[in-house]
C-alpha cells in the first residue's frame, strides 16, 4: 500500500531558556492510503500537538512530516493554506460549522475555497451528502440540526475536496452514544467506499475501537501500537482497554 503520511523524528519544544517542555520527543510513524488510524494518549501526552503539526497549524521544531511525498515542514505560509485546502480535511470536536450558512453552503465553502470550478460545486456536494445520509438536511442551518447531524455535515465538508488525509480531533467528544456510533459507522464507510484516509485523535476507547490501528502516545513518544487485523470490534476494544491499563489509570 502507498504511504500517505510519513512522520520522522518529530520534535516540538515549547518555551525557551530555563523552562523547556518537549511536547513531542522524536516520534516516527507511517499511515497508508485508505487506513483509519486512531491516536490515543493521556492529556499532555502530545497527541494534540502532533495533530496540530500535521495540520500545519503549528510548526515542528525538528524532524519531517511528508504528506503525499511533500515535506510540509518546509512549506511557507502562503503554500501552507493552499496545501491545507487541497490535501487536508478537518473534523473538530465542536463541529465548527459556520452558523450563518446552511449545511449545503458549509460543505460548498470547502470547494469554493479550493477554487473548484463553479459548475461542479452543486453536484459534488450532493454526492457526498448522499453518501453520509444528510441529503435531506442540506437546506437547514446548524442551529436547526442535532449534534450528530452537525458532525456529519462537518465530515462531509472535510472529505468533499477528496483530501489525501482527514484529521479528526475528538470527533465524538460532544456527541451522545447513539450519534457517536452512527458517526463512526460513517467514518468506516468513508474509508471503505471513498478510500479516505483518517487520522483520529480520541480519548474514548469505544471510538478508537472502530479504527484499523491505534497509536498510543506517552511523553511525546510512540509508546505502543495496536493493529486490529481480523479481530472483531469487541475483541479490539478489550485489547485497547488492556493497553490503557498499562499506560496508567487515567490514560484515556
Amino acid at each position, binding site marked *: 500500500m502507498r504511504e500517505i503520511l510519513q512522520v520522522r523524528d518529530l520534535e516540538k519544544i515549547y518555551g525557551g531558556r530555563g523552562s523547556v517542555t518537549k511536547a513531542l520527543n522524536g516520534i516516527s510513524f507511517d499511515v497508508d492510503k485508505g487506513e483509519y488510524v486512531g491516536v490515543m494518549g493521556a492529556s499532555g501526552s502530545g497527541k494534540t500537538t502532533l495533530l496540530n503539526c500535521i*495540520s500545519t*497549524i503549528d510548526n515542528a521544531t525538528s524532524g519531517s512530516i511528508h504528506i503525499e511525498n511533500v515535506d510540509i515542514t518546509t512549506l511557507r*505560509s*502562503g503554500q501552507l*493554506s*493552499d*496545501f*491545507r*485546502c*487541497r490535501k*487536508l480535511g*478537518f473534523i473538530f470536536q465542536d463541529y*465548527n460549522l*459556520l*452558523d*450563518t*450558512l446552511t449545511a449545503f*453552503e458549509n460543505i*460548498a*465553502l*470547502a*470547494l*469554493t*475555497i*479550493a*477554487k473548484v470550478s*463553479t*459548475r461542479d*460545486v*452543486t453536484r459534488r456536494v450532493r454526492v457526498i451528502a448522499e453518501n453520509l445520509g444528510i441529503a435531506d438536511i442540506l437546506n437547514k*442551518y446548524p*442551529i436547526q440540526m442535532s449534534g450528530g447531524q452537525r458532525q456529519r455535515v462537518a465530515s462531509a*465538508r472535510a472529505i468533499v475536496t477528496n483530501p489525501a488525509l482527514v484529521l479528526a480531533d475528538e470527533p465524538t467528544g460532544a456527541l451522545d452514544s447513539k450519534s457517536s456510533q452512527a458517526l463512526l459507522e460513517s467514518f468506516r464507510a468513508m474509508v471503505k467506499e471513498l478510500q479516505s484516509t483518517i487520522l483520529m485523535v480520541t480519548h474514548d476507547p469505544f471510538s478508537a475501537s472502530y479504527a484499523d490501528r491505534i497509536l498510543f502516545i506517552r511523553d511525546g513518544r510512540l509508546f505502543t501500537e495496536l493493529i486490529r487485523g481480523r479481530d472483531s470490534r469487541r475483541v479490539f476494544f478489550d485489547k485497547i482497554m488492556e493497553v490503557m491499563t498499562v499506560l496508567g489509570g487515567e490514560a484515556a
Partner: protein
Amino acid sequence: MNIFTLAFRNVRKSFRDYGIYFLTIMIGVALFYIFNSLESQSVMMDLTQDSRLALLGISQDMNMLSGFVAAILGFLIVYANAFLIRRRKKELGIYMLLGMKKGKISAVLLVETFLVGLVSLAIGILLGVFLSQGMALITAKLFSVSVSHFAFVFSADAARTSVLDFGVAFVVVVLFNVININRQKLLNLINAEKRTQQFHKIPMAVSILLFILSAIMLGVAYHIMLTNGFAGFFDESKRVMQLISVILGVVGTMLFFFSLSGFLLRLISKIKGVYFKGLNIFTLKQLSSKMHTAFLSQTFVCLMLFLSISGISVGNALSSALRDNPRETTASIGIAYMSFYIGMVFLLTCASVLAITQLSEASDNQARYKLLGKLGAPAKMLSKSLFTQILVYFLLPLVLAIAHSFVGIKVMCMLIDLLGDLNIFATSITAGGMLVLLYGGYFLVTYLNARKMIR
C-alpha cells in the same frame, strides 16, 4: 497591582481598540476648538470696527451651535465606549472571577477613561490650535483684509470650553460604565463570546414587496419635494405636503435598507458563477445576516450623510452667492462656517458610528475567520471578504444619501435662486472632497484595524 498600573497597562495593551475612539474625540475636539476660537483669531487682522462686530456675531452664533455639537459628540463618545466595554466583557469577567470588587473594576475603567480622555483632549486641542491658524487666514481672506501681524494665537476660552464640554461627556461615560458593571452577572461576562444567534429570515416575496414599496415611497417623496418643495417655505397650505414627503423619505430609506439584504442576496445567490467563488458564500451570508439588525444604523448614517452633503454644498453655494453683495459679507461668512461646522460634525458622527459597528462586528466574528483560515482560506482571501463587507456597509448609505442630496440640493437651489446666482456644482465638489477625506479615511482605518483583528 494597583488600579493605576492596571488601567495604564490596559490602555497601552488595547491601544488598537481605542484607536477609533481616540481619532473621533481628537477630530471632534479639534473642530470644536477651531470654531470656538474664531473671535480670538481676529487679533491678528486689520479689521474695521464693523467687521470686528460682525465676526463677534458669527462667533457667538458658533458658540451657541457648539452646545448642540457637544451633545452629538458626547453621544458618540458614549457609543464608542459601549463598544469598548462589550469587547472586554470576558476580561472584566476574569477580574470578577479573581475576586475584584465591582467598585474597583469601575475605578479601573474610570482611570482608563480619564487617561484616554486626557490624551485625546490634549492632542485634539493641539491639533485645533494649529488648524485654527489656517482658519484665521481663511477668515481674513473672506473679510478681504490683510493679516498684518501674524501671531500664534491660543484661545484659552475655546480650550476651556472644549475641556468643560468634553469633560461632561466623560462623566457620562463613567456613570454609564458604573451602571453597566453593576448590572452584569459574572456568568454572562465569562460566557460573553459563546452566544449563537437566531435567524429571522424574511420570505423572499416579502422582501421584494418591501423593496418595491420603499422605491415607490422614495419616488413619491422626491416628486413632492421637486414639485412642491420650496413653496412650503412660504405657503402654509403646502407645508403639510412637505412634511409628508419628509416622512415618506425617512420611512422609505428605512425600508430600503431593511429589504435590500434579503432581496439582493437572493438575487446574487442565483448567479452560481458569483456565488460559488472563493468566500462569496460566506461574505454574502455575513452581510445578509446582519442587515436585518443593521438597517437602523444604516438609515441613521444615510440621513446624517444626506444632511452633511447637502448642508455643506448648499451652505457654500449660498455663501458665495451672498459674497458678491458687500452688505451681505457677514451673513455669507456666517452661513459658510455654520454649514461647514455642522456638516463636518455630522460626517464625523456617521463615519465613526459605522467604524465602531464594523469593528465590533469583526471582533465578534474572529472565530469564524480563524476557522476559515484552518480550512485553508489564504489570508488574502479573508482580507478580501472583510474588505467587501466593510465597503458595502460604508457605500450603501452613501449611495442613497447622494441620491437624496441630489434632490435636496435641487430644491434648495430653487429657493436660493431667488436671492442670486448660484454655482452649486462647484461647491458640491468642496463637500465631496471633505467627504472623501474624512469618510474614506475612516473606512480605511476601520478596514486596517479589522484586518489586524482577524489575523
